[in-house]
């Protein structure tokens, strides 16, 4: 019984928060938005801190649920990201009418991701995936009065339903071939007969949809643009990060038997993803669309890391996601503050921002440098480890193309920085003052960007957790 409590700790805490929210919604109407925001920020911080203690490894429900120190680390990373997002979007949330619902949907998606991470079984994985997608579509529609927010939600639910359909077809073929849903165990044989490869390709496309790998990326930019900034950052960081974690571990465990098949597919997809993501990011003029395409390009680099051998591939992609959370949330934090106060989101509006908002400009610049991978920031180390992991397979063509793509990406990140620091603008942004929460979130991001790069032990720590994969 106590084993159950310890193993399911992360999920139970989230469930508790969910129940608290439900009871509050039913019980009293006196709670104001700002006190609810502080309460939730506190609860999410407790959730993040509690994630580090009293963890055990083990299996529950006949292999349906598993927990290991690597999974605990991944869950804590996601909790941290969620906390930062809640902190930095308080300016937008303050005036919203349905705040308890927003938190409920957000907590439940996080819970779905945790179950998805811990699943040792395709059925459990699928339900976790749905629990982390369907509420997200409702979250995309949270700017109730804006038409393109509804459009974003519609596109999100349609494309995710379509990808779930393909994924389910793959899962049912998988079940037909192996006679079991579990990804492992004594009777598990996945040896690469044609039908198994077909099932794998379908499951793979389900993943690719959620990761917005290039032939499956068409929904990304529109959904990112239409959603509220808080949801966009949640989608691009937390949702994508959890998918990368699951994807990497599934590739190295369940589909290890056909690694020679998926290696080629992964190489082609990462090439296409990097190139298309970068080329489209060059010509975007809306900040959210721009970050959408830049995040597509980042997924291309992550796929290179995953194509490497299991331990270094796993560790480098987790390390990169950790850095990506800090750098992307830094950029989104600035955009979110400015969008909430002025409602302006295009790159032209950011011209001359340094004159009026010097601190925010520096945070934005640091985050974009980290996303581009310029040496003193953490992003450089993240990309270096990804490429090193990928280079272990000896495919130097792929690495060269990736390096060239990073140069292209430097151009468009620097374009934003030039607009912020150098360009003149008569109609520049007014001086924006964030509240305590958003400042704390930005400080967290800046510290994270600097610390994760220089704390050399961090990568080794993740690598030691990934042993035995």
């Amino acid at each position, binding site marked *: 019984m106590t084993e159950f409590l310890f193993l399911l700790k992360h999920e139970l805490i989230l*469930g508790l928060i*969910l129940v608290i929210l439900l009871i509050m919604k039913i019980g009293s109407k006196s709670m104001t938005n700002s006190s609810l925001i502080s309460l939730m920020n506190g609860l999410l911080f407790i959730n993040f801190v509690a994630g580090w203690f009293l963890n055990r490894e083990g299996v*529950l*429900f*006949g292999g*349906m*649920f598993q927990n290991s120190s690597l999974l605990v680390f991944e869950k804590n990373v996601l909790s941290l990201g969620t906390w930062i997002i809640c902190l930095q979007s308080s300016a937008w949330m303050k005036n919203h*009418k*349905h705040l308890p*619902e927003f938190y*409920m*949907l957000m907590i*439940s998606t996080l*819970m*779905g991701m945790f*179950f998805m991470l811990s699943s040792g079984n395709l*059925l*459990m994985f699928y*339900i*976790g995936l*749905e*629990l982390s997608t*369907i*509420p997200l*579509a*409702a*979250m995309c*529609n949270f700017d*109730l*009065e804006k038409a393109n927010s509804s459009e974003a*939600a519609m596109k999100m639910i349609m494309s995710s339903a379509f990808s779930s359909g393909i994924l389910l077809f793959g899962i049912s073929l998988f079940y*037909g*071939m*192996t*006679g079991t849903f579990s990804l492992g165990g004594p009777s598990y044989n996945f040896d690469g*007969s*044609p*039908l*198994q*490869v*077909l099932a794998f390709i379908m499951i793979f496309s389900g993943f690719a949809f959620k990761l917005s790998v290039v032939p499956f990326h068409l929904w990304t930019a529109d959904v990112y643009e239409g959603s509220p900034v808080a949801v966009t950052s949640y989608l691009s960081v937390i949702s994508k990060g959890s998918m990368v974690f699951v994807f990497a571990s599934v590739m190295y465990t369940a589909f290890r038997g056909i690694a020679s098949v998926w290696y080629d597919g992964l190489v082609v997809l990462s090439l296409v993803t990097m190139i298309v993501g970068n080329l489209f990011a060059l010509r975007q003029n809306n900040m959210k669309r721009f970050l959408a395409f830049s995040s597509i390009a980042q997924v291309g680099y992550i796929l290179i890391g995953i194509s490497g051998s299991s331990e270094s591939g796993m560790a480098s992609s987790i390390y990169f996601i950790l850095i990506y959370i800090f750098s992307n949330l830094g950029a989104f934090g600035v955009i979110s503050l400015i969008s909430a106060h002025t409602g302006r989101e295009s790159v032209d509006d950011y011209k001359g921002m340094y004159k009026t908002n010097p601190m925010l400009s520096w945070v934005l610049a640091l985050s974009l440098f980290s996303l581009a991978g310029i040496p003193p920031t953490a992003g450089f180390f993240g990309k270096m480890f990804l490429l090193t992991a990928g280079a272990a397979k000896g495919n130097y063509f792929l690495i060269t193309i990736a390096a060239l793509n990073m140069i292209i990406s430097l151009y468009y990140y620097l374009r934003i920085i030039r607009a912020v620091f150098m360009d003149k603008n008569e109609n520049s942004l007014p001086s924006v003052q964030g509240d305590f929460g958003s400042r704390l979130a930005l400080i967290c991001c800046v510290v994270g960007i600097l610390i994760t790069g220089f704390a050399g032990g961090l990568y080794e720590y993740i690598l030691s957790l990934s042993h035995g994969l």
Partner: protein
Amino acid sequence: MTLYLFYFLSFLAVLSALMVVVSKNPVHSVLYLIMTFFAIAGHYVLLNAQFLAAVHVIVYAGAIMVLFLYVIMMLNLNADTEPQKGKWLRVAATVAGGILMVVLVGALRSAADTLPVTAHDNQIGMIKNLGKVLYKDFMLPFEISSILFLVAMVGAVMLGKKEIK
């Protein structure tokens, strides 16, 4: 006997599924879809899954079809409003669909001998056994899906609330 029934039901399912796609009138499509669902329910009965067959008919042929019909009637769809796709898109779609079919047929043919055969149990689809499996082996997914329904409901109610000014 069962084999003939199987062939008959499969023929019916494929034919009516084809008619769903081909027929011009959306209401006809929906009616053919009901026929497809009944044929699939027949397959469930052949597999000794009586409970699943009953649920399938009630939920899909009953509830979901009514929803479909309502939506079609409210949108007032007909052949004129149907968006026409370009010629090249049609060719591309045909080629892609054909290739997918060839791949599927090829993969299934090669796998036909290697499929795992499980022991046949003619009580497997009874509601009692189903309940036992659901609450014993699959308890965790069952419970999680209740959370999924709860938050889906929260989202739907939130979105459905009209703002009265």
